């Protein structure tokens, strides 16, 4: 029964999000939609790229991801992880912003999309980085 959860992690190139206000708006609408779909996860962003984890029932993750895929504000999506999972890593977050954590924000701010792609940063690595960052930030 706990096996019907699905988790996806990807990185993508930021092609349209430039400031905090836009990020806030995106997060607000993402949280609303995700809560409704029983999807949780975390997002990180800098000038060049996004990294995101989505988890929930597979059909819900499929459809949320498909909507995100059509978003013109990013491109060059690379899926790092797509797996079934016994539990959630971000149970308390409809969509955590891992950038609230200064350390994660700083680490991620340094990352360039080309480097991320080159180093083929492993999905599990990205996952634990987001998890650490979110762990230091208490649920709103």
């Amino acid at each position: 029964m706990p096996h019907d959860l699905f988790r996806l992690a990807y990185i993508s190139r930021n092609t349209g999000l430039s400031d905090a206000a836009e990020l806030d708006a995106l997060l607000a609408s993402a949280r609303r939609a995700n809560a409704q779909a029983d999807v949780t996860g975390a997002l990180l962003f800098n000038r060049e790229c996004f990294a995101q984890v989505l988890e929930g029932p597979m059909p819900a993750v499929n459809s949320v991801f498909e909507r995100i895929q059509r978003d013109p504000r990013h491109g060059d999506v690379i899926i790092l992880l797509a797996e079934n999972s016994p539990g959630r890593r971000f149970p308390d977050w409809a969509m955590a912003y891992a950038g609230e954590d200064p350390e994660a924000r700083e680490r991620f701010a340094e990352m360039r999309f080309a480097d991320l792609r080159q180093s083929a940063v492993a999905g599990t690595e990205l996952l634990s980085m987001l998890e650490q960052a979110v762990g230091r930030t208490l649920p709103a």
Partner: protein
Amino acid sequence: MTDPLRPPAAVTTVDHLTGLTDRRGFMDALAAALAPPHEAPPLLLLDLDRFKAVNDVHGHPVGDALLVTAAGRIRSAVRRGDVVARLGGDEFAVLLGAGTTDAEAMRIADRLVDLLGRPFLLEGRVVQIGSSVGLSSAAPGIDAAALIKQADLALYAAKARGRGRAARFEASMQDAAEARMTLEMELRAALPLGQFVLHYQPLMDLKARQTVGFEALLRWQHPGRGLLAPGAFLPVAEEVNLMPAIGAWVLRQGCREAAAWTAPLKVSINVAPSQLVDGTLPAIVAAALAESGLPGPRLEIEVTENALIDAGGVDVHGQFQRLAEMGVMLALDDFGTGFASLAQLGRYPFQRVKIDRSFVADPRMMQAAMGVGRALGLKTTAEGIEEATHLAAVTGEGCEIGQGYLIGRPMAAAAISPFLHAEEQHDAA
């Protein structure tokens, strides 16, 4: 059973799977859009690249989910008033609204290529495809058939340019398509009209410095354009599936001519991947040998690494085994340039590798290729020997046989006797 109380179902113009307009609805919409006094709107034709592979690998339910999701992405990229249709299989059309400029149409086409090139998550599986898009380029007074043809030619060009892109119709595409069609027609006639000939390039034993065989090379004596090399026509021959017939002729002709040589030398004949797909190669070779009286060991069949890969699902190994049983030699051509793994090579009964010409001028690559050949217990032929330094290098590496302009250019069948005679005289002197 029809229920007499229910009216007949309305004629539907909706594609059941995707909910898009179907072909019939699209043709109606196109006719309406072109009715005077309207100007022809831009039309996009779109094919999914690698869709068939998704169906084959992941099964039809995933293939169907892909079509539905792809349809959603296409719809998300167009505006109200644009008509999105599924014409069948993985073919889609977008009829853009009246007044759409060419620049807007191109932007939408590029956006479609971008969107469909993004990964799909289907029932937990990540699937990556791509798409090619052809755009019409409106001309005043153009009719539906001509508009579709334009977009179709542009789509063909987009695919020819490597897929995963959009192309707009240009008049030159019409010319290219016509030239290609003419070529196809002439090519279909070439075999019955006896316009193919074989030329032969000498293969020299590098130790004995003696000709030990010839590689048969296909030429087309084209009625208007002279003698054509394979590059000018084999891609089209492959596309229209003439290769198996041409290949069978090459085998028959090569064996017949080799049987008539004054010395019992070997003939090497190339076999294309498409000649392996129906499993008839051993029978064709057996017939060629029987007809000509050429002993099996005098025939060497050359295949490229692609033949081992392209023939997915076909029993290549069994066919090679049967050829080996006839005493026919098997050589791997263009060795080192394909994608076959060493493990794969070891599985097939090859006796020889032909080291690709691109390695002959590079001592390190040459050594590496020779090393692999030797480790697998294979004899080696070096191709592309054009300079004395190449010859010295491959001889120094212990390569058995050499081939290239320095050793001998391809020649007509009739030139072989004088060539061998001259060699004899030279050796005797």
